[in-house]
């Protein structure tokens, strides 16, 4: 019994001595936004104890805090402790998706390789898959997010040829179709004015008059750029709605998740 007690105190003292990172001090550095000091502290820990898992864990968090994503991914891949921390994985996914969707996807791939792929069950990851293929089952989405998904889905289903055809039939009406309704009247009025100018120029000065040719050039440029632009803009609308949906999911999932407690 006495020997066990001695061992107990021996280990207690040893573990105290081996304690590498002062988490309270790190929290203080984070709250005070002392990033330079924070980095110096972590570098000093690396010099003192080497690249241990716990030091790497804090370095990973620091990289995420300072948006140093390349270093973050490298540190995370080699940190076993990080892959066991589900809340850190979820927080990282949310943080990364706001920076770049592709980077978040890369992170999830690393999770399946180095970690236990806990992120596959997160709403964000499932929503990402859903954004790639909106025909998948969306029953996992909570009520608050369904609206944003439907918004994305309606944009996803829009056809470029319909937008182009509408713009050709009635100038700028393709804008209404793709969801840029607020700039419809401006574009429509511009096309109508140029159309009227051209019509009057043909009637009054004849089709071969230089003024008519210039007017036709202006009308043609605005008319065709409107058709082409609507088709081009539809790609952007789809991309924007997708991002919006994923950001809303990220906001939803980020409740009660903190990088530092």
């Amino acid at each position, binding site marked *: 019994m006495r020997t066990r007690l001695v061992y107990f105190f021996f280990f207690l003292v040893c573990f105290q001595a081996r304690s590498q990172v002062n988490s309270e001090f790190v929290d203080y550095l984070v709250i005070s936004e002392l990033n330079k000091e924070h980095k110096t502290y972590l570098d000093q820990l690396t010099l003192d104890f080497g690249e241990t898992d716990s030091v790497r864990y804090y370095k990973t968090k620091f990289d995420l805090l300072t948006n140093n994503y390349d270093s973050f991914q490298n540190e995370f891949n080699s940190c076993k402790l990080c892959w066991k921390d589900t809340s850190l994985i979820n927080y990282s996914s949310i943080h990364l998706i706001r920076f770049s969707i592709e980077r978040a996807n890369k992170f999830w791939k690393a999770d399946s390789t180095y970690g236990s792929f806990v992120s596959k069950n997160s709403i964000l990851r499932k929503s990402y898959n859903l954004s790639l293929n909106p025909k998948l089952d969306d029953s996992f989405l909570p009520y608050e997010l369904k609206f944003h998904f439907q918004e994305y889905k309606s944009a996803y289903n829009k056809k470029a040829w319909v937008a182009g055809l509408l713009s050709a039939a009635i100038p700028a009406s393709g804008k209404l179709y793709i969801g840029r309704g607020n700039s419809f009247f*401006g*574009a429509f009025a511009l*096309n109508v004015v140029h159309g009227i100018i051209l019509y009057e120029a043909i009637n009054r000065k004849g089709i071969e008059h230089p003024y008519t040719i210039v007017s036709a050039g202006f009308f043609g440029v605005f008319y065709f750029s409107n058709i082409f632009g609507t088709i081009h803009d539809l790609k952007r609308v789809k991309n*924007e709605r997708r991002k919006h949906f994923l950001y809303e999911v990220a906001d939803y999932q980020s409740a009660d998740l903190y990088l530092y407690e």
Partner: protein
Amino acid sequence: MTFKDRSFLSIINPFSYASIGLMFTYQRLVSQQIGADCPYELSCSEHAKRAVERYGILKGAMIGFYQLQSCTPRTGYDFPDHAINSDGRIINPIEIDED
């Protein structure tokens, strides 16, 4: 934009250089005089200039003119929050990336 990013048509077509030059002249001489205040992050002339550099004169001009006719006081309402920068201007990149 690096030379490699530019389309082949944009590189060989002398009209591309002429139109970029015209845009440059407009920006230096006219735009400053009329005190243009654009709701977009890249003004129409800058956007068109870069689009011509990237895609060539035909597609570039189409993209430039599309932005010109999309510019109304209410245009900003068509865009979600993440497409507006901290100055309240619409972010309008030349490339429509998926990211």
